[in-house]
């Protein structure tokens, strides 16, 4: 009995190893760190640029400036077919669990984007929190930038995270995109990335330039970074960030400390009215003055008013554009209506574009200045 007790663990130890089938060993896997998706309209095929980590080379084998990744380009009628051909070409099995980024090229229509994402939702090793971004041009160009020895996909992910922290970029993960794309009336949004050329040193790098609003039945719409900030204010998704105000009386740079947006919905004459109330706290980080003199309480009041006007006009402009002109519900107004008045929604969603353009939206903004920096305040003249 004692011998059996010794033999059994020994057998288990030798037979139940994690890497038992050959294809699970790391050297037989393509550890994917980023995927770029483009569409070849002529051939009607998806063009995938797959960035994989170089697992076969040790760190000592790699030069410091050498990027530790390899890029492969494969094509297929479907994403699955293209990826499968990648396995056939390299003799390795793709592993998606380390994938940080899926970049969708401008050649993809919104419908194709959603179809392409289907694969990543189903694939068991793909993570639901992988970042999704749209490129202004080709996704392959974004993914193959020179990251100076870093993994480009990681660099892009960091750029998106940082831009989101500064409230100039939406932060979209796979599960969020899928969630919004499944809402009947909502247009989902993706961070927009473009490749820019640095002068010194002369190399290509990436920049987060705003947002792409996507929906199956409307053309993709782009938002600039200031519009993105207005959008984040509307959606209560502001983190930190800064903006400048310039008016006749005052000019200053402000840093957002906190912001809270509350959206309420009521029915007036059977039509929905959305009331958006923003409460924001900012710090003055720069005040346009030639004399370094301290500013007065009156100046504080003026800055607050100008900041309120800046945020309000930005939000109103964006809401006007997307509800009346673009007919694209990026604000989830339809979803809010469905939650509160499902019967009204049922009726209005039949022609949501028209209903959206007739929707009344009221914006109120209240800005409070927290800190004014190290300079003192002077008393107002009475």
């Amino acid at each position: 009995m004692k011998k059996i007790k010794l033999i059994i663990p020994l057998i288990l130890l030798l037979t139940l190893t994690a890497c038992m089938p050959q294809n699970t060993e790391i050297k037989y896997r393509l550890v994917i760190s980023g995927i770029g998706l483009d569409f070849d309209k002529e051939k009607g095929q998806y063009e995938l640029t797959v960035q994989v980590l170089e697992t076969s080379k040790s760190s000592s084998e790699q030069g410091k400036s050498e990027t530790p990744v390899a890029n492969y380009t494969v094509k297929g009628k479907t994403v699955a077919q293209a990826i499968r051909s990648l396995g056939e070409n390299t003799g390795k099995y793709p592993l998606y669990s380390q994938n940080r980024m899926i970049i969708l090229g401008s050649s993809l229509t919104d419908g194709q984007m959603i179809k392409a994402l289907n694969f990543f939702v189903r694939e068991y090793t793909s993570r639901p929190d992988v970042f999704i971004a749209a490129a202004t041009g080709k996704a392959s160009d974004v993914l193959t930038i020179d990251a100076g020895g870093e993994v480009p996909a990681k660099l892009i992910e960091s750029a998106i995270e940082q831009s989101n922290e500064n409230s100039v970029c939406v932060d979209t993960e796979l599960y969020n995109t899928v969630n919004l794309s499944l809402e009947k009336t909502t247009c989902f949004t993706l961070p927009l990335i473009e490749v820019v050329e640095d002068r010194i040193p002369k190399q290509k790098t990436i920049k987060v330039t705003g947002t792409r609003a996507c929906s199956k039945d409307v053309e993709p719409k782009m938002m600039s970074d200031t519009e993105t900030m207005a959008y984040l204010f509307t959606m209560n998704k502001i983190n930190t960030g800064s903006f400048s105000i310039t008016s006749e009386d005052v000019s200053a740079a402000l840093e957002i400390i906190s912001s809270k947006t509350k959206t309420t919905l009521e029915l007036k004459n059977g039509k929905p009215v959305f009331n958006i109330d923003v409460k924001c706290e900012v710090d003055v980080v720069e005040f346009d003055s030639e004399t370094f003199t301290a500013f007065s309480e009156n100046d504080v009041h003026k800055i607050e008013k100008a900041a309120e006007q800046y945020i309000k006009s930005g939000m109103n402009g964006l809401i006007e554009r997307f509800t009346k002109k673009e007919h694209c519900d990026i604000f989830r107004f339809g979803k809010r209506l469905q939650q509160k008045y499902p019967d009204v929604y049922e009726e209005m969603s039949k022609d949501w574009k028209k209903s959206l353009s007739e929707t009344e939206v009221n914006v109120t903004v209240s800005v409070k200045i927290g800190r004014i920096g190290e300079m003192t305040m002077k008393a107002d003249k009475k």
Partner: protein
Amino acid sequence: MELTPKITPFQFYTILFLSRVFAMVTYVASFMTQRSSTDEVIMSLIMGGFLLLTAIPTAIFIKKDNTSSIITRASCVSTVFSKILCVIFFIQSLYFGIITSVRFGIFTGSVMFPDINIIFFIFVMLAASSYIAYKGIEAMGRSAVIILIPVFIALIFVFATQSKQFDLLNFTSLFSVDIKNTFLSGLYSCTRTGELAFVTLLTPYVNNQKSRHLFRWIFAIVLTIFVSEILISGVLGNFAGTQLFSMYAMSVLAEFGFIERLDAIITCLWLLCAAVKIAITIFLCETLLSAFFGKRKQILFIVISASVIFLGTIPLSGSLITLANIIRSPLTIIFYLASVFLVPIAVMIGEKIKGRAKLEKN
């Protein structure tokens, strides 16, 4: 005389809690209805209501006598009746074990090793569970309490880390799919708590069991399911409907600071819950066979029970549609209601009639 090993009510209900947690993790919402986030939350409350209602006979049963099992008490009414009950409960336990093994197979085959033959994993799990069952209820109780600690931490961790992603806009309007479907889903969800039948069957193994322990267990289950449904709906929204195991999908998202990939550890905990669930089922099968034959042959009965579960799992493993059809069948409700509602009531009525007849005879 051989003494019956006993565990504390806390240990016993910990086993049952872990067992139900595995059912929660492997719950496939799309089996029942088109997923609607708010309705899923309401469904968990309806489930709680049904569970409370169906637990009343069990509560009365253990209040009257918390030392004898339902089989022993049925044998006082009639030996034939107790033998019939043994057979009914044995079939139900096998059914419970088979469904759990199939769920385990689909879970491991979908989220862990889709390229590998899951029959092998089911075999390994059944072998491990049989060994746990062989070690007895005391070992099971102690292990369950140890497993509960990381499971509890994992649940709190998942709930806490995901609460910042929570968005009220992801909820739908109330009963947006169908009110009837929501109630039906609540009832089916209640039938997944087949562990309720274990309470009357394993009474002799639990020291000084009270009704309050039973209700605390129900409260813990409903609260866990309710909170997880709220978070799944608020965090994942419509995405939850695209996932086979929405609770697992949410646990994959859990990260804290630099600790990003904890899903592998959390998945191991779900598997431990599966082991506990299958082990207690096999233990119950062995107890029922011993009661039926009137003598205890522990290893033989465990091997027979595990083998039948394994053989029953093979044709069903890997087929989601078959599993969905079985779970949706009225048989599930009949089995559940018979074991937790009708049989305890029947035994108590039998006892009353027998008691009255005895009185009249005297």
